[in-house]
């Protein structure tokens, strides 16, 4: 029952897009979780969100034990509190490349860089956004202009004052570097600072997800000083505005940080943080279980299963959009008929894959990039299930008696195991797939998206293969790069005008109803055309001993420690 006495004043103060969201929630068209998630994107404060939820007869707190979504942290359990002092010892994979915040591409680098450098916004639990260097933000009526208010008290660790010019310069560097999240969203000159506490993003078109694109979900957007030159390495002259100051860094062995006493967020509980780098998962697990380290940034079920049942370890499970795609060439080869591609889709046992590869720590996919984690994903679209008879029937309709192809898989994470499972289940439908597991250089360079021929991109791709994609706070990159005509990573060579229009609709949709409607149309079209299969979206797993709490992680490798400490 809605309390209109409390509800109306909030509605009167809301901007049009915010009002659209509030109405959707009040009318029961959004779950509370989706409302909170979406509300933070549109710049509604937590106080306003709580007031709306209360006016509609609910509460913003959640006691769910299931996996958190997007980003989240190990809260203090059992009512225990965090004490001051101590050092947290973290196990992490070693960064693969120099610590260049503009060009970094690996999760370990993201984590190290984000200890010192901060984002405008942070993408936290349930894909909720929380303030970072920006203390608030709001869109204009159609979501084409976003205004961010920068907080007071931010200082660079070298003592120089922070200014909005640093923010503007950072995003100019993003444009120059062709940042994949912001490409086509902003251009040079799009970001301006009309006054010392305001930054305005004037977009190339309406975009309801901009706050995600300038958040920790887009790791390269850490704010660096105006004078920072692209290509500079942060370990050479450590700086930043964040809670930790780098005292040592060795790309092969580890890094050390001490508290930044000038951090705007206040005094951290921990005195220092030590990172130890590893090349493999197994020694990290041993290190955590033997007490040599206190936390492990990320682990997979394959290799880290023991942690899931270790009574001394707290496992953080984040629902994410990370997945593997099975692409099939729609323009040439044996998969040009969509009936054949659908047959491959029906021959995959998604539930069995989720169980065998992830012990249930994954969501079943429905052959579109709209993962269950996204609030606008329409789960009413019929789920594609294993149906061998239907697969056989589709092959028969397509006039295919015998199909033999090489399934290329990158030698990374569980992709080789997935390839074998797909091969075995497809064989039941009469599709013979020979698995070719390839090292990353061979796979990315020859099978997935060869540099030549360059036009259209990826037109030299193999006819079928499995490629990995990491988590994103919005599906725009997947929808654009891997499925759009001329998409940079469109190895299926899917070229559909109808899809291109639907994607435009989705990008332009700002209100929650419009986004859900646009998403549903794409989901249904991709299910029908099946250029690329999305069998699952796996949870991001992180762990730490129960002696520590307050550790927050993201599904793209961050570990935020501003609130972390030892349990009293």
């Amino acid at each position, binding site marked *: 029952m809605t309390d209109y006495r409390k509800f109306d004043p909030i509605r009167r103060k809301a901007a049009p897009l915010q009002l659209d969201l509030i109405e959707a929630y009040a009318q029961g068209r959004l779950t509370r979780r989706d409302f909170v998630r979406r509300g933070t994107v549109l710049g509604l404060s937590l106080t306003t969100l709580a007031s709306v939820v209360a006016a509609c007869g609910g509460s913003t707190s959640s006691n769910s034990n299931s996996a958190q979504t997007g980003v989240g942290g190990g809260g203090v359990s059992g009512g225990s509190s965090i004490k001051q002092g101590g050092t947290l010892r973290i196990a992490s994979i*070693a*960064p*693969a*490349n*120099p610590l260049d915040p503009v*060009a970094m*591409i*690996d999760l370990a680098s993201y984590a190290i860089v984000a200890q010192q450098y901060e984002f405008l916004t942070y993408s936290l639990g349930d894909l909720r956004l929380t303030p970072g260097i920006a203390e608030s933000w709001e869109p204009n009526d159609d979501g084409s202009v976003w205004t961010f208010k920068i907080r007071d008290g931010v200082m660079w660790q070298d003592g120089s004052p922070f200014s909005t010019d640093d923010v503007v310069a950072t995003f100019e560097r993003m444009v120059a570097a*062709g940042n*994949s999240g912001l490409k086509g969203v902003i251009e040079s000159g799009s970001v301006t600072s009309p006054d010392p506490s305001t930054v305005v993003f004037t977009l190339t078109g309406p975009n309801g997800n901009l706050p995600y694109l300038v958040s920790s979900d887009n790791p390269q957007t850490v704010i660096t000083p105006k004078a920072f030159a692209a290509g500079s*390495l942060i370990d050479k002259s450590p700086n930043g505005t964040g809670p930790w100051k780098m005292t*040592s860094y*060795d*790309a*092969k*062995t580890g890094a*050390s940080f001490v508290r930044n006493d000038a951090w705007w967020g206040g005094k951290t509980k921990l005195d220092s943080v030590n990172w*130890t780098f*590893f*090349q*493999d998962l*197994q*020694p990290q697990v*041993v*290190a955590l*279980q*033997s007490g*040599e380290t206190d936390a492990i940034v990320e682990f997979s079920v394959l290799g880290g299963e023991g942690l899931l049942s270790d009574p001394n370890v707290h496992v953080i499970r984040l629902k994410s959009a990370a997945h593997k795609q099975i692409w099939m060439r729609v323009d040439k080869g044996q998969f040009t008929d969509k009936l054949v591609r659908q047959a491959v889709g029906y021959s995959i046992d998604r539930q069995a894959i989720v169980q065998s590869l992830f012990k249930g720590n994954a969501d079943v996919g429905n052959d579109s990039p709209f993962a269950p984690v996204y609030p606008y994903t329409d789960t009413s679209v019929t789920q594609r299930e294993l149906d061998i008879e239907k697969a056989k029937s589709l092959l028969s309709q397509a006039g295919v008696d015998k199909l033999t192809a090489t399934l290329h898989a990158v030698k990374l994470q569980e992709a080789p195991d997935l390839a074998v499972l797909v091969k075995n289940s497809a064989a039941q439908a009469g599709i013979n797939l020979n698995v070719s597991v390839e*090292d*990353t*250089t*061979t796979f*990315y*360079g020859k099978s*997935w*998206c060869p*540099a030549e021929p*360059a036009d259209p991109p990826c037109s030299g791709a193999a006819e079928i293969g499995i490629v990995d994609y990491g988590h994103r706070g919005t599906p725009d990159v997947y929808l654009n790069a891997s499925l759009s005509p001329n998409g*940079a*990573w469109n190895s299926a060579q899917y070229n559909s005008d109808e899809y291109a229009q639907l994607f435009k609709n989705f990008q332009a949709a700002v209100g929650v109803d419009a986004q859900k409607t646009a998403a549903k149309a794409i989901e249904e079209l991709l299910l029908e055309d099946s250029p690329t299969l999305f069998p699952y979206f796996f949870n991001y797993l992180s762990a730490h001993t129960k002696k520590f709490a307050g550790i927050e992680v993201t599904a793209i490798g961050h570990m935020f420690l501003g609130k972390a400490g030892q349990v009293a």
Partner: protein
Amino acid sequence: MLRFIARRLALAIITLLLLSLIVFAISNVLPQDVGRSILGPFASQETVDAMNHKLGTDQPKLDQYLHLLKQIVTFDFGDSFQTGQPVSDLIKTTLQNSAKLAILALVITVPLGIFAGTLAALRRDTIVDRVIVMFGLAGSSLPEFVTSTFLVVLLGTQLHLLPPLANWPPGSNIFEQIHYLLLPALALVLVYFGYIARMARAGMIVALESDYTRTAMMKGISRGTVIRRHVLRNALLPTIAVVATSTGYLFGGLLAVELIFNINGLGRLLVTAAKAKDLPVLQAGVLVIGIIYMFATLIADILISWLNPRIRLGSEG
């Protein structure tokens, strides 16, 4: 002896040149797109081309080889493609760590293996002999990653007798470092003990059955003196050769052990460099291991020629 050493050193320089050619050839056999490896699959081709140009990997092969020769002469291999750190720093650090482990393993294994092999030969066909031979065989037939994992689980995580990983805290003194290195060294001892013990045993048996031993015994010299002065001197020649060839491997080939115990050693450095197409690190690392091999065999040759002057005289004649 000095002439002998000078000749071996001259040979070593020629070997080094040949090694540089082999290293260059092998590193160029790897699938080549260094820029792509560094920038990742999602970087544009223009950016990748610019990176390759910056690194010089788009230059003609002859130019690249001449550049490598210059680097060898000056021992300046530039910066790592992967991390941006000076290659000499990376090699120095990892070589130190590998050397600590290798030396610790050798210090334990060599005397232990020679003692056990000698004992087994002197007690040939007794229970002592059989126990030593069987134990050695079992140890050396297990791969390093099996013994390492077993030791980590048993002594590291279950009994907590030794640190399961070789990550000593910064500022640790040499004794604390040895404490952290004991478990990986033990894994190597298990593997190499049997190897050395069997070589020592076989050498001892041959020497004990030789005419000069029999003659010495018949001259009335005590058994202990015969063994010390005549038998061991000859019996150890094959063992020294085995230790020498193992040394290079102990410095640069312990990938499994270094991964399991998280040791920042030369073997791990080389594998990550090979994966990342980090050619300067790869080339410098392989050359360093080659040099270690050469010095180890040189020292072994000197030792052997000292123990058995006929070898030196033969090569000089």
